[in-house]
């Protein structure tokens, strides 16, 4: 946020001449610009979708929900919270068939992915553990974090 302020100050003339500032970053970037003290209209030229892993050029996939209560150690490194359309923590729903997700037959069921990986690691027994209700208090909005020195 400080850097945005500094960059805009360095381009004071251009900013003053502008009617509005169009931001092509993410939702967080738009708000950094809005908070930078320019008193200009802000146009958000975006619809930020998710924190995406890049599969290949131009192909992004959501793998993490930034939930603050990580389950990945116990789910063989695949997040059911995010990869399952329903965020189910104890196995697939009744809509899974032939390893496909009910919401999109093109998509592999998250629990099928977890099952296959656990099987290949010889760790199927980890899936038998019942996961208790999740602590969503870690995910309350707006999130903030101050790291003490």
């Amino acid at each position, binding site marked *: 946020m400080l850097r945005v302020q500094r960059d805009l100050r360095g381009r004071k003339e251009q900013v003053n001449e502008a009617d509005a500032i169009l931001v092509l970053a993410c939702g967080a970037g738009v708000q950094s610009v809005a908070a930078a003290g320019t008193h200009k209209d802000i146009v958000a030229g975006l619809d930020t979708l998710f924190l995406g892993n890049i599969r290949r050029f131009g192909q992004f996939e959501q793998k993490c929900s930034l939930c603050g209560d990580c389950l990945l150690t116990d789910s063989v490194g695949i997040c059911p919270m995010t990869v399952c359309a329903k965020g189910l923590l104890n196995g697939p729903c009744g809509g899974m068939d*032939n390893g496909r997700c009910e919401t999109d037959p093109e998509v592999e069921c998250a629990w099928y992915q977890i099952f296959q990986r656990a099987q290949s690691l010889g760790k199927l027994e980890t899936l038998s553990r019942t996961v208790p*209700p999740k602590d969503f208090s870690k995910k309350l909005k707006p999130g903030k974090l101050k790291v003490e020195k």
Partner: protein
Amino acid sequence: MISLLEQKLAAGYFVVTAEVCPPKGCDCSSFIQKSLDLKAIVDAINVTDNQGANMRISPLAAAALLVRAGIEPIYQLTCRDRNRLALQSDLLGAAALGITNVLALSGDHISFGDHATGKPVFDLDSVQLLQTIRELENGRDLTGSPLQGTPTFFAGAAAAPEAEPFALTLIKLEKKVAAGARFFQTQAIFVPEKLQSFRDAVNHFPAKVIAGILLLKSAAMARYINRNIPGLTIPAPIIDELETAQDPALKGVEIACRLAAAIRPYCDGIHVMAMGREDVIPTIVREIR
């Protein structure tokens, strides 16, 4: 309140349950009439919860109306539309209104229904919902706080015997039983051999199996279900049978009767999903009684 369904299953009686969909709207007269027409031949009626993520009257209200009409409901409760407060609150309400049977479900995804732009909840999953029911039955809420009055439920869960891979499905079924599921109502069965192997796999569970029978009306309906209904696949030979039949609706009844008779040895009861053709349920029931 005591669940007669539970008592009948415990006594080894072969039960019949049927699904009746509550209305979109608050006029429940036709819903109650359909249920009353079935009262003499079924042991309990499943009240669906915003089935297929299509908004309808609350299943809690509809199930309570059945109790008032002297019919035993199986109250279907999904995690899709309610967080843990609402689920517990509705369960306590159900107990207070005399509802004894609860079917704990995840719920079809909201994208299938008529409110596809809504926010899905899924605060709990079906295993955690079963655990929640057990906590309430132990006189505590999910945080351990004591309840004023302890509910008693006959809790059940869904099972999909034809879904692959079955080994993955089985892991969740084991968790459901450990969490307190005492009966399963299955997805519609079209291949009796699959129910047989399902039965073999779950026979050691202390849970009864009520197997699903879906009434098909036409080949077009079967294809529509294959495209749009999660977890249901109607095999091609059955679709062909409907396609070439002179009277597809009649053929659908014949298929349902044939399947009911074929699966009877592998279950403790059948669950008929007649999709609006509740009038033919007696014909199907005659096949297994």
